């Protein structure tokens, strides 16, 4: 009886931790499965059942025709879409926060429209638009589409940051002999940087794994998500899991690195 009571007490004390760990497991289980199956050696073309351990796929990630080409294309599009959306989105965010102009309120709400609209609807309307304009579907139509839907997210992220910025900081810079350009580079940009970085990361992630809009507007171009979707009809090569795991590891390393930098900074300050 005493044992049961103490167990219950322990459980009660650690309830929050337990709930947190369970949620984390729920969140990470798919990644674990992806990683584990990247070491599988399936019989046949489908990588859905565990057979035996093998590092074959890791040794030859480009062994499947078209995979690495689509991956490189996706990375390129994601990179350019991030650059384009971040530059334009930052400009829009500053304009919306700092300047009073006609239709500012309307733009403020319209910016959210692409986020709210069902993706498949937007994909179809974009295709209609491109076809009516006589555009050739491919890299450029995909890039234009990606920049478009990433913009809303960048604007939202940067706007939050710019709104919390004290305008007196820029006045102080001007008061201390910094002209408009110096003020922007030395004060405005560094302070807005976390918001801009958050927007850029979001844009990269959204662009890299977008399937619906890309599939409608890519023509014969094949991005990585499209490749995965296409190959799933005929069989799933283990290499897909390898790429997925590698992306996950890169992301984790990125987070760890930024945390380390942050920690070092705090320690130096103290």
């Amino acid at each position: 009886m005493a044992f049961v009571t103490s167990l219950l007490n322990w459980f009660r004390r650690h309830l929050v931790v337990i709930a947190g760990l369970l949620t984390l497991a729920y969140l990470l289980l798919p990644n674990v499965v992806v990683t584990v199956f990247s070491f599988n050696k399936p019989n046949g073309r489908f990588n859905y059942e565990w057979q035996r351990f093998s590092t074959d796929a890791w040794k030859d990630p480009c062994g499947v025709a078209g995979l690495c080409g689509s991956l490189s294309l996706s990375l390129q599009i994601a990179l350019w879409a991030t650059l384009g959306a971040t530059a334009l989105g930052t400009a829009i965010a500053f304009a919306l926060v700092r300047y009073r102009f006609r239709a500012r309120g309307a733009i403020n709400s319209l910016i959210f429209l692409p986020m709210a609209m069902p993706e498949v609807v937007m994909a179809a309307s974009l295709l209609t638009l491109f076809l009516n304009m006589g555009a050739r579907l491919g890299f450029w139509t995909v890039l234009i589409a990606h920049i478009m839907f990433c913009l809303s997210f960048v604007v939202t992220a940067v706007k939050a940051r710019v709104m919390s910025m004290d305008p007196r900081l820029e006045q102080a810079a001007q008061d201390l002999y910094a002209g408009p350009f110096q003020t922007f580079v030395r004060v405005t940009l560094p302070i807005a940087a976390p918001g801009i970085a958050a927007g850029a990361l979001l844009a990269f992630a959204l662009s890299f794994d977008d399937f619906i809009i890309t599939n409608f507007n890519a023509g014969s171009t094949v991005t990585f998500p499209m490749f995965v979707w296409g190959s799933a009809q005929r069989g799933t090569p283990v290499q897909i899991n390898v790429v997925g795991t590698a992306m996950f590891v890169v992301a984790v390393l990125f987070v760890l690195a930024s945390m380390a930098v942050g920690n070092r900074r705090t320690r130096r300050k103290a």
Partner: protein
Amino acid sequence: MTTNPTKTRPDAADRGGDVRLAGIGKTYGSFTAVHPLDLTVARGSFFALLGASGCGKTTTLRMIAGLEEPSSGTVHLGDRDVTALPPYKRPVNTVFQSYALFPHLDIYENVAFGLRRRGIRSVKKQVGEMLDLVQLGEQARRKPHQLSGGQQQRVAVARALINHPEVLLLDEPLGALDLKLRRRMQLELKRIQTEVGITFVHVTHDQEEAMTMADRVAVMNAGRVEQLGAPADLYENPRTTFVANFLGTSNLVEAEVDTRGGGDVVVKAAGGKLVLPGARCSAPAQAGGRVLVGIRPEKITLTHADDAGSVPEGRNRITGTISNTSFIGVSTQYVVDCAACPEFEVYAQNIDRDPRLVPGADVVLHWDPAHTFGLDAGQSVLAGTTGEAGTAGDGAA
């Protein structure tokens, strides 16, 4: 410090000079924040713009800094018209309200900011000296948010002073500090100003702060300068009810002018007669006209009604009943109910306390007529008291 040879500004030879505002005003749409005003701040002086929030004092300061474009008028520094110059081209630096320190830079870089923007390469010595002056040498590599309010305030001062501006503008620099620290920083700022000899223009809503620190004070109200002068002069000779009430406390009694002659004005108030020097009466006092008679609470002596006979001749006197007393330590504050004025305030030093002076006691208030002042009766008696912005300026202007 004033002879520092590293100054690179083209007008390095022409140190300082007066700040001259000529007809400077600011309107936002139909709202007038600052009515066109003329103001000269003498070189090397400590000047305070004093007023309640929204009186236009900060707007005036920002127009000197170049952060606000005047709707009319000009700003001169010495002989130079700087009205059209942007803030980063004016030899003027500002200590902002709540400091506006750059959060992404450490203390050292905050202080070095102005020097670096002017292309000065070796800033180390100057920054080090400046940080020592404000006693923050140890904190050079800290970020602003790791510092206390008082330390941040000193960084803001150092960041501005290191540029050896012709004029240092201070926008309520002590507003965020607690009372004790504020008193210390007041003395500190005053010491720095005397040491570096730079013109300081200080904006504050704290009348005590303005009087402690400044050589000259401009009292502003509703976008106008109500009165300008040395602190003691403003306090002793207020010319409007706003100044009389905003700087310290004043007892104001409505009275009718009886006679005027021999330099004195005699008025009738609540059955008695009061005398005031004609020179201290800013109202047009003709016989039969109305004036407000003012007297500061600490000029008044309180005598119990039983000893009324001992009050010397030739003093202004009013009788009343004590309605309230509060003991403050160095002094006791009495509120006396008189026929002429329902809440007459009297401050008495606690030298010899008369135990009979308790609420309900009948007393005689008396004071030297030379301490009395007269104001135009056309103004609100309450202008300048708490919660009363007042537009009394029109009456006296």
